[in-house]
């Protein structure tokens, strides 16, 4: 009986629930539409390439141990991941140019007119690249709004790095062996840093976008609006002083209801039932 009464209240004030849920649903739909239209908001694509950083040996002048090489390689790999090299404007412009050169392989993999996104924007590329290091191996991860773009960028990073690593890591290496002839004769060796691709750019995989949890939040928002609408319906009904039922009357006045008269029905248009004189 109570449940039926609650149901009657909700039904009577259903317009409140519809209004609240409707307004919030419109807002949620608008927000979702924006997310849907924003590239990378709901889903994004990931590709990565792994590089090994090393040092060429110095030939006859070399008096370094293996450990020196390993240590120097790790230091250079660390510089590649921590210094702003991969996210530098110069590097990212080089990646963009490399992608233009790679169009043949990109078309071969993703078909004609692949959607690469704005790969010629160095700032966008800088925001899409992250890197990690294990010993002398650097894994560069690319998160991009299109699968072709993610793969193309990772591939281009591998190519640019292997071809031009020495220009980005152009640290001077001091030939400490020259100390035998005194500090004044110490010479600086030309950069001998090398990079090789350990694993090629991986196929693009879908990962959740930056706003992937927003649709769920919007759904929760609509559910909360529904609950608020129900609560408002009860509140409005509670504040409404009007008599609604025979139970209301009998409880209020403690007298019986002798009869209930329905609303006045409309007269038939042909007037066949009209028996009283016209007013």
């Amino acid at each position, binding site marked *: 009986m109570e449940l039926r009464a609650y149901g009657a209240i909700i039904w009577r004030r259903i317009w409140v629930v519809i209004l609240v849920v409707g307004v919030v649903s419109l807002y949620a739909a608008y927000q979702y539409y924006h997310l849907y239209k924003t590239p990378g908001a709901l889903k994004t694509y990931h590709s990565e390439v792994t590089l090994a950083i090393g040092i060429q040996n110095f030939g006859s002048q070399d008096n370094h141990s293996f450990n020196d090489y390993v240590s120097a390689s790790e230091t250079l790999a660390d510089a590649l991941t921590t210094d702003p090299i991969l996210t530098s404007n110069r590097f990212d412009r080089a990646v963009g140019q490399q992608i233009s050169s790679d169009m043949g392989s990109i078309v071969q993999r993703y078909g004609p007119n692949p959607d690469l996104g704005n790969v010629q924007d160095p700032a966008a590329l800088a925001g899409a690249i992250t890197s990690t290091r294990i010993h002398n191996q650097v894994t560069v991860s690319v998160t991009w709004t299109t699968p072709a773009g993610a793969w193309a960028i990772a591939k281009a990073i591998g190519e640019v790095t292997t071809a031009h690593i020495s220009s980005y890591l152009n640290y001077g290496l001091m030939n400490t062996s020259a100390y035998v002839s005194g500090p004044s004769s110490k010479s600086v060796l030309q950069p001998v840093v090398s990079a090789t691709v350990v694993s090629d750019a991986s196929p693009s995989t879908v990962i959740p976008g930056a706003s992937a949890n927003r649709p769920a939040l919007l759904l929760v928002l609509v559910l909360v609006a529904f609950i608020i609408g129900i609560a408002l319906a009860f509140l409005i009904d509670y504040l409404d*002083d*009007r*008599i*609604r*039922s*025979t139970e*209301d*009357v*009998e409880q*209020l*006045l403690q*007298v*019986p*209801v*002798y*009869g*209930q*008269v*329905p*609303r*006045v*029905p409309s*007269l038939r248009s042909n007037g066949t*039932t*009209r*028996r*009283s*004189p*016209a*007013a």
Partner: protein
Amino acid sequence: MSIPSQEQVTLLTDYDAGSPYNIAYQTLYANIRFNWDSERIKQQTLLITTPVATPRQSEVVANVAIVAAQSGTPTIVIDANFRAPSLQQRFSQGESKGLSDLLTGNVPQPQAIGSYLCATFVPGLRLLYTGKAPIQTPNPLLSENLRDVIAGLRQFLAETETKPSLVIFNSPPVLAGLEASAISSLVEQTFLTIIRGRTTRTHAKQAQEQLQRAHAKLAGVILLDL
């Protein structure tokens, strides 16, 4: 009276006898009839009023009276709603003498009261309209003179009718003035018309308290859908 009403009273006779609207009034009258000990009270007097002005007040009075008359009960409807008289217009009787003439003058003999009553197109139903004499509301003499009018009507019915008969008052709203309270103190039963979804609890309770102060016998409620 000179106050015309724009209200259009819906009469039961406009509808089929088997319509839900008609049946609702038949049920209402049956319940009123069950509560009427006609062996003890041959001339029953009722007041049907409302807490605040509603467009359907006169409709309820007219239709209960029509059902009563159609059921074979000689019925007189007294339109005591001087603020918004409406029954005269609906029963298309034109201006005639009525309650105000009885209240402002000397109450005539019971036989002469019959000349104030107007027959209607419903057999067994007569009306005492608001009348032509101007009346100030609230009239301090209303209650006293009205007592004599009611007594005269009872006497008239007792002399002219063999069956138990019914007198139904139509009054202004309880909270609009003293008329309803004054009449309620003189009739056997009072019914409060409440419109579902429109009449507030506050008004209904205030009307009941007002009627109680007048020592009215509030028999029950008539609930209307709007």
